[in-house]
């Protein structure tokens, strides 16, 4: 019952969002988010649920996207009349077929072997995407016009917000589909094979077959995301199936958190948002993203959702209040430190004239700017070191095991 309410809230949220963020930029970001969420969740079926580290998941996204664009082109030339609402399905089926083929030999082993094959297949496809011009369109890519498709109950999808509702519908179906998959025997066995492939075999299951099923399902949903991309942008290029694209989805899933179903959703929403908002302000965006990823791997192996989940125990024990003061005390110098470091990085990047950073004029040419910012960073660092022990002590107190908490625990 509770889950039913959650799904209803999710559906309602999807319907209300474009009314709140009704600007051109708002709708455009929402569309990107919908695509990213489906893609990141499909990736988590591999890595989080199935223990398969893939460096080439964009292959299924890209192939699905390219076939979807071609399907749109066929409609444009009136060879076929595929309704636009079904284009993501075309992408999904293409991703599924590709995964059936590649998964048949790549899922024999998890770990390094799987990762290397995924990398190899990804590079192979990225290379051939520049060679096979008739399908991939070479450097320019392939573009189509979605408005040629037959109208869907009078909707011609000329406006982005119309595309949003198409994407939101597919997003809802895909999220539901992937959620339900994790609760079927095949989905649960994927977790078992992730944890201990050998034992799963002695329970009657071929580890390869279990991985293969997850792999194909992941390929299908990645293809749907690719199809949504085709509908939204009306163009696909080689960049959509290369290693950078595969890396992006890995970052989203990992930073969001692999352990919980909702983790990659949070990662996709956050990274899409930050990406589209900050892209205009800084050229160092990829550097910051890389730093965030490294810090996540080092300090938050279970991602942002893992960080949230860590607070369940203090919350259950009613000790969350203990953390408010130390959190605030640490957050202030922490934020100042991060912002001043970003300021320093930005200054080193912009060798030319002065610029305004957070309302403060900075001049890369003057020693004053450098020294002042450096001094702020050092002071913030010292302050942070002084506040951290207090936070640690408060955390230890808030998470101290009470007898009742021994009964806690939650899997997957």
């Amino acid at each position, binding site marked *: 019952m509770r889950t039913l309410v959650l799904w209803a809230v999710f559906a309602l949220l999807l319907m209300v969002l474009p009314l709140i963020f009704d600007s051109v930029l708002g709708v455009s970001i929402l569309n990107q988010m919908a695509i990213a969420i489906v893609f990141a969740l499909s990736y988590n079926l591999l890595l989080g649920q199935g223990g398969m580290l893939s460096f080439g998941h964009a292959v299924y996204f890209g192939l699905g996207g390219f076939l979807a664009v071609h399907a749109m082109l066929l409609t444009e030339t009136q060879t076929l009349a595929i309704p636009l609402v079904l284009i993501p399905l075309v992408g999904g089926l293409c991703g599924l077929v590709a995964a059936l083929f590649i998964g048949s030999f790549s899922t024999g082993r998890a770990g390094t072997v799987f990762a290397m094959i995924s990398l190899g297949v990804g590079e192979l496809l990225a290379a051939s995407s520049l060679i096979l011009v008739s399908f991939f369109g070479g450097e320019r890519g392939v573009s189509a016009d979605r408005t040629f498709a037959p109208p869907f109950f009078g909707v011609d999808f000329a406006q982005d917000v119309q595309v949003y509702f198409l994407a939101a519908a597919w997003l809802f179906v895909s999220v539901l589909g992937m959620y*339900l*998959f994790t*609760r*079927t*025997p*095949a*989905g*649960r*066995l994927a*977790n*078992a094979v*992730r*944890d*201990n492939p*050998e*034992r*799963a*075999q*002695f*329970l*009657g*299951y*071929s580890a390869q*077959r*279990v991985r293969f*099923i997850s792999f194909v*399902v992941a390929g299908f949903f990645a293809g749907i995301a690719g199809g949504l991309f085709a509908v939204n942008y009306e163009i696909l290029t080689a960049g959509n199936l290369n290693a950078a694209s595969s890396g992006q989805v890995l970052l989203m899933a990992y930073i969001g958190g692999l352990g919980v179903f909702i983790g990659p959703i949070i990662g996709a929403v956050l990274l899409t948002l930050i990406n589209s908002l900050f892209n205009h302000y800084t050229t160092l965006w990829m550097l910051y993203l890389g730093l965030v990823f490294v810090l996540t791997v080092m300090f938050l192996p279970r991602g942002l959702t893992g960080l949230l989940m860590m607070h369940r125990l203090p919350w259950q024990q009613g000790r969350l209040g203990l953390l408010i003061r130390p959190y605030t005390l640490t957050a202030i110098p922490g934020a100042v430190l991060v912002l001043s470091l970003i300021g320093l990085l930005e200054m080193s990047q912009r060798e030319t004239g002065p610029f305004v950073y957070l309302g403060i004029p900075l001049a890369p040419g003057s020693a004053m700017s450098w020294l002042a910012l450096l001094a702020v960073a050092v002071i913030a660092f010292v302050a942070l070191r002084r506040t951290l022990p207090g936070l640690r002590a408060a955390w230890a107190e808030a998470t101290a095991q009470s007898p009742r908490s021994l*009964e806690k*625990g*939650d*899997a*997957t």
Partner: protein
Amino acid sequence: MSLLQLDNVSKSFGNSAILRNVHLRIEPGERHAIIGPNGAGKSTLFHLISGRQQVSAGRILFKGEAIHTLPPHEIARRGLARSFQVSSLFAQLSVFENLRCALLWPLGYGYSFWHLLSREKALNARTESLLDELGLWQRRDVPAGELAYAEQRALELGLAIASGAELILLDEPVAGMSATEARQALALIRRVTAGKTLVLVEHDMTVVFDIAERISVLVQGELIASDTPAAIRRNAHVQEAYLGVPAGDQHA
């Protein structure tokens, strides 16, 4: 017809022979213990029977059919289950999920992605009765990786017996347990394997003589005796090879 039959089974890694020409018959319903000093090849024997490793020579028949060429999951499906000396669990899954995974194949779910686990009443009821039987009811939602040692051993046993396999191989099921824990574990083993055929590797002789109806002695890769406990106790070769007492010195 024997339930399990090993004919002339040998296993070697490179030049070193681990098992040499092992002949073994396990009859239906029998409780059979395999004993021997460390490094005698007991665990390797289990690995060969369960398909984890390939025989170098010889053949293994289960219910009259050759299984030594099959992968582990095919052997398991024919009704041969095993436990591990070092607990081999699904660490991140809850105790409940661990046991439910062990029931999926026997209850015919295969690789289904069209059943919702939470809706399968019979499956969940079976899982719960297993939890109860193993004494893990209180710990059902705890990840297997966080269990105490004795609990992990109980779950390990649970994964082996869940399928209702006809033949169960237990690899040192009570090793590392305190006397009390071992006694409880033995009672549990007796209870859950009633009516099944049981083969176990065990170091603790009190356990072996307590539970086994027949005992095979493995020394340096060779099976030197296979008989009733009383006969094994009297067997001079066994005493010499296994207990380190030269035959004939006993009465000196």
